[in-house]
């Protein structure tokens, strides 16, 4: 009974982690950089959702896409103003200044946290629930209505994203740029536009994840650090740049954390994720779904 409860709760948390992590994974897959401000996209989504819904009395279901749109626009702006100078003018990705990406995204993270802290305030801010029932019993399992609905939305979005990447023209362009930026450019694909699209998708997904979790995690300006750290673990565990790997790894992490908390120690639950990260880096540095390869 407890085992079943823990498994379901772990899978639900895993779905939320996945929504965050796939965006980070896509950015890494195409640009080979880690976006240290990814958690703040989550925070912006949570605040956009909570503030618009509560201040203007708009139905939370209509606010959800607005939060995603906010995150996507922020992603586009960040790409245009901060990331594009990294590669603009270069045809080969090997010229990229990695250290610049680390500094600029880390600075952006701090800027957004402090901006929200000063403009909106430091108080935690619980967003409105998409579903009025706080408790739903499914057999022996008790679930929060918001968690249940959010899980459904997450599954739908993750499947849609997978289909988009696999089947659509834009998705194929993203795959091509991720495989070989220079080659993709020679084939007529615009890597700049593709990169901008990836930032928009990553920003939108992270913001949507924040909006969905807003009634559960009581967001405050520094809320982004929690999903961001999980995402870094998941991206490495799943294999850097692998979207499928990230989804799979997110579910595994969610469930394992849940078991670890009860059967080993709750106090070290978050440290457990980092322990997994270290083990993966030692024994399988390419992650669960990453491919072996070396760039020259």
């Amino acid at each position: 009974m407890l085992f079943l409860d823990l498994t379901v709760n772990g899978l639900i948390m895993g779905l939320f982690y996945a929504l965050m992590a796939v965006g980070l994974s896509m950015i890494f897959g195409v640009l080979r950089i880690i976006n240290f401000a990814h958690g703040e996209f989550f925070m912006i989504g949570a605040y956009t959702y909570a503030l618009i819904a509560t201040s203007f009395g708009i139905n939370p279901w209509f606010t959800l896409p607005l939060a995603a749109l906010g995150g996507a626009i922020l992603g586009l702006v960040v790409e245009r103003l901060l990331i594009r100078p990294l590669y603009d003018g270069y045809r080969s990705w090997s010229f990229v200044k990695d250290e610049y990406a680390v500094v600029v995204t880390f600075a952006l993270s701090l800027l957004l946290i402090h901006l929200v802290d000063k403009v909106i305030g430091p108080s935690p801010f619980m967003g409105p629930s998409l579903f009025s029932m706080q408790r739903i019993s499914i057999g022996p399992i008790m679930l929060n209505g918001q968690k249940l609905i959010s899980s459904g939305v997450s599954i739908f979005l993750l499947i849609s994203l997978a289909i988009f990447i696999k089947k659509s023209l834009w998705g194929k362009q993203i795959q091509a740029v991720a495989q070989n930026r220079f080659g993709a450019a020679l084939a007529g694909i615009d890597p700049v536009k593709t990169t901008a699209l990836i930032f928009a998708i990553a920003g939108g997904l992270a913001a949507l994840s924040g909006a969905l979790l807003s009634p559960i995690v009581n967001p405050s300006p520094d809320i982004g650090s929690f999903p961001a750290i999980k995402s870094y673990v998941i991206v490495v565990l799943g294999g850097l740049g692998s979207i499928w790997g990230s989804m799979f790894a997110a579910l595994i992490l969610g469930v394992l954390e849940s078991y670890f908390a009860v059967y080993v120690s709750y106090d070290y639950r978050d440290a457990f994720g980092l322990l997994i990260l270290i083990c993966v880096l030692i024994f399988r540095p390419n992650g669960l779904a990453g491919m072996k390869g070396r760039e020259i």
Partner: protein
Amino acid sequence: MRILQLIKLNLSVVVLGLFTLEAFAAEPILIGLSITRSPPGSVIQGTQIKDAMEIYADMINAKGGLLGRPIKLVIEDNQGLPEKGRSAVEKLITRDKVVAVTGAHQSSVCLSEIEVAHRYQTPYVNTNCWADSVRIKGYPEVINTSPYNFIVADSMAETLKAMKVKRVVAFAENTDYGIGLAKGVGEALKRKGSTIDYKFETLDRSSKDFTPAILALKSNPPDVVVLTMLPPAAYIALNQLYEQGVAPSPKTLVYDGAGMADYPDFWQNVKDAGKYMMTIGMYHPDMKMNDLSKQIAVEYKKRTKNDPNRLIYQAVDSLLVITEAIRQAGTTDSAKILDVMRKSKFEGARGLMTFDTFPGVSYQQWAAIPYVNYQLTDVNQAVGKTTLLQGPGMPLNTSKITMPK
């Protein structure tokens, strides 16, 4: 007659003006505030402490200042991080040359800051660090107007014993405050000869999902879940206890040991999960108010549009101890100020403060700090409308406790 009155009035205005001018022409007396102004620490607490201390400083300056000099608060942001707190106090003492430091509101930060204050022998008035270890260090520079874990734990244990419960589980955040208080409740229960089956679980305060720890209670819920956690983690734990049907329930109540029910954002963040919660409070509107606390309440409401809570009065009392000690000592010399602080009585916003001299958990602590126990019986209930289970200095009345149906 009327002309004479007018002349008198004008003269007094001129004299008062001259006094004020003299006070403001003089070098200000600097008092250092190390508080959280930016995440990850509690910015809400930092802001409340700053607002309250500014109100009290303005009141003093409006009356001509101290020793003919205005007082000025020098604020440093410690971000709620021990290492930042240490450097903030170092800066305040060595660069700004403050007379005393106050404002701290997180135990782990206090513990690092008092090392610096001790090294420079600068008075340090603890506003809201509850961990007993702050007192046990025995530093003569540290004066405590804050509540302290020992008395809170003792009161909570007394309440649990009076409730005649059999099994209690505490969720403690992984901080000096959280673990200290949870351990303290267990020790207090033993001291009181209680047979309650008590255990505590440590939770990571940065976590957003406490469900696994709560699920473990579902098959055999305890009679009371004690929370020694601060918001926002405490809000999340409270919501998840409710959503899993563990507490509040006809079998289980939540007992909060952080006094969070008077936080301005409490109801916005917990809604139905806050109903039936019992809490220990360091302030309740039914407590006896003196002129100072009434003045502070009016001014605080005017400036912030919020009702005052315990932290506002704690902050005022911290600054009051410093300013009154300077006034009574007639100097800003650290040793003399500390001597006055140890020996004098101070009429603060929460009552008459004196500081113990016995080594241990109440060293240089206002030991007889007033507290209450109350229960929230409705959603969005104002603290003044809650059920008072125990008034300050009164016995606990468990017959008033309401169980959910």
